[in-house]
């Protein structure tokens, strides 16, 4: 995989190589070079299978990480291409013309993370959710527990005691 990395490095401004396994590596590339890198990987290097496309929300640094995972069946290798996007302007070029199935991924990312892929077919249609009126749910700043508690009723009658506190009350009559 090192050889591949060096070949690619000569052509594209790549970030550091993370070797997770002997047959799985991750590289970072900027958004502008993604498409040409993917084309290179698909057409020249034989990474023809788009395994998945997903995002990670690094809210601390204000970035979304898009991961394009490509597989090369003949060589039994996988490469994950990472693209960091600003959370503020989360827009990315679509790749549905390279892999038609990417349109589905992009539709999901649009809905669940709020990352836009202009020109991707049906990207603005509801995919999984229906009538969603909050921030995209997979974003880290969306708190699902709070939302669920505010929206759906609990069955009343649940209460619990902390053993340590309860024992102190019970054994020493201390209320703290």
């Amino acid at each position, binding site marked *: 995989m090192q050889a591949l990395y060096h070949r690619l490095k000569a052509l594209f401004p790549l970030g550091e190589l993370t070797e997770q396994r002997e047959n799985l590596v991750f590289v970072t590339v900027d958004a502008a070079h993604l498409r040409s890198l993917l084309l290179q990987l698909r057409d020249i290097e034989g990474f023809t299978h788009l395994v998945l496309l997903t995002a990670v929300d690094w809210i601390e640094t204000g970035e979304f990480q898009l991961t394009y995972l490509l597989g090369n069946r003949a060589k039994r290798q996988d490469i994950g291409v990472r693209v960091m996007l600003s959370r503020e302007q989360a827009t990315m070029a679509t790749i549905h013309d390279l892999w038609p199935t990417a349109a589905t991924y992009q539709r999901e990312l649009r809905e669940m993370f709020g990352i836009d892929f202009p020109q991707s077919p049906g990207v603005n249609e509801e995919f999984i959710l229906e009538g969603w009126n909050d921030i995209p749910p997979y974003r880290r700043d969306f708190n699902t527990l709070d939302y669920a508690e505010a929206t759906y009723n609990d*069955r009343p*009658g*649940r*209460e*619990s*005691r*902390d*053993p*340590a*506190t*309860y*024992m*102190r009350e*019970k*054994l*020493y009559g*201390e209320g703290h």
Partner: protein
Amino acid sequence: MSVRDLLSPFSAWKNVLRDPVTIADPLNRDAAPRYRGFHQNDIAKCIGCGTCETICQNGAIDMLPVDSVATKIGDSGLRPRIDYGRCCWCALCVDICMTGSLTMSNEYKWVDPNPDNFRFTPGIDRKSWDSAELGYQRPEQHRLTETKRIAMQELEADERIDNFAEIVAGYTVAEAKLEADRCVSCGICVATCPTHMAIPEYIAAVRDGDYERGLKILYETNPFSQVCGRVCTRKCETSCASRHEGDAIAIRWLKRHITDQVPYERYREIVGDPLPPTGKKVAIIGAGPAGLTAAFDLARLGHQVTVFEAKGAGGGMTRYGIPEYRLPYEALDRDINLILSMGVEIHYNCRIGVDRTMDSLQQDHDAVVLAIGLQQGRQTRIPQSNHERVYRAVDLLHKITANEPFELPHCAVVIGGGNVAMDIARSLARMQKQQYGVVNITVTALEEQQHFMADADEIKEALEEGVLIRDRCGPQGCEVDTGGKLIGLKTWRVVSIFDEERRFAPKYDEQDEVVHACDTVIEAIGQFSDNSLLGELLTETLEWDRGRLKIDAAGRTSEPWLWSAGDCVKGPDVVSAVADGHRVAASIHQKLQEEDR
């Protein structure tokens, strides 16, 4: 398409003649022996630690009090109530259960029109599957928490026998992390600890490697953390949830680990400065753990505290009773110095009743705390026990600490099976090794060895160091030869110690008599307090309870200005003394504040 394609489907009709494969009575079909069905809980085994609640990702478990279980040490009295409106039968609660009380039956049918009924406390609410034998139990090898304690590095017997160097090395950071990782943070120990140290929190600090946070937590509740990190009686570990199916967490060592990891220079800053002075004055008699803890608390609250100590150094029994190899003096000094740095004034070698009177203390101070501990050793009062070569263990230990000369026995017999007996036996053994090259110490006690009051570790180490232990021996008298020289201790074999009503009334087998040859007998059967410093008048005025000062829960005596704390009123235990110190300090502070208003 062939004829076969047309005809072969009709072969399906052969099934008409076969018996159906239907289960005849599906309503009463048993699930597999391992099936994870409805929960069972062995209420007697359960300790209500709430670990099941912690691991349940569904929020299905509530810990609630139940009528039939009382809260006691090591048992919170809570029992898990499971909401079958949440449960997913993953059995993580069974896997993690610290006592193995929670299991699952292989029953699986529960139908009810009322959705509020699907909540129950297994073992308490009677269910049809309570007695089911089959079902999921945690497989033997399947543990989600480590059961074995991380071994503590200690000096080997031959390395330690000829010196007073500290035996226990203390955990390394890696070891401490592993040990801290075993804790499930249930907090059952907190109530067991007399001073309610925030044990799960400081263990979490060890886990996180945040020792300064840990230290701050320690000194919130225990100014003798260095001492307790070494010699605490660790009641917490007796109630530890991990104890039930494995070793208890080494809480004491982890506490010590925190104090070891933070540089001593940082202590003062981490613990923080006292509050501004209030102008109130408090006198404390005795610089043992109880007295100094009270001093620490009161000083931090801004009161002016003066401590009067009869001996030449602070620490009380921790200094004069506990041998150096268990508690190095530097550790003790560090704790004491930290306390003194809070603005506590201390007068050493100042014996109340001799150098100052109680009256003068009362006049000069807003409150007085009596924390004099148990200084005097009890005697067996067996025949010939007034011989000069019959010692009290505490006296000898004091001599050793204070470097006072005494004639080191060549062969000694210790009476008693407690920690003090072990301390003196092992101290003498070291000195014998240093001076004579051989160890010749015998420990005798009434109980069987496994019922000794001493810690199991102490006994084990004493044996390693060459101390002989003769259990079930009732001392009957010292043997003195014609020249008046002590030559041995006569014991009878103990048949039973208590009578039917559990009163102390040892019975002996008089035929089974042994004389343990020795030149010294050491009595280590307990201590008592010398209250003569109070003076006759005060002694008369105060109320007493079976030889001890009578105090209320807050440590107040019957005199409004006098509090008492520590061993002298509660019996010997470092951490209890610390707890007492806190309690008295809080009570005094409250009183002083009320006076202000």
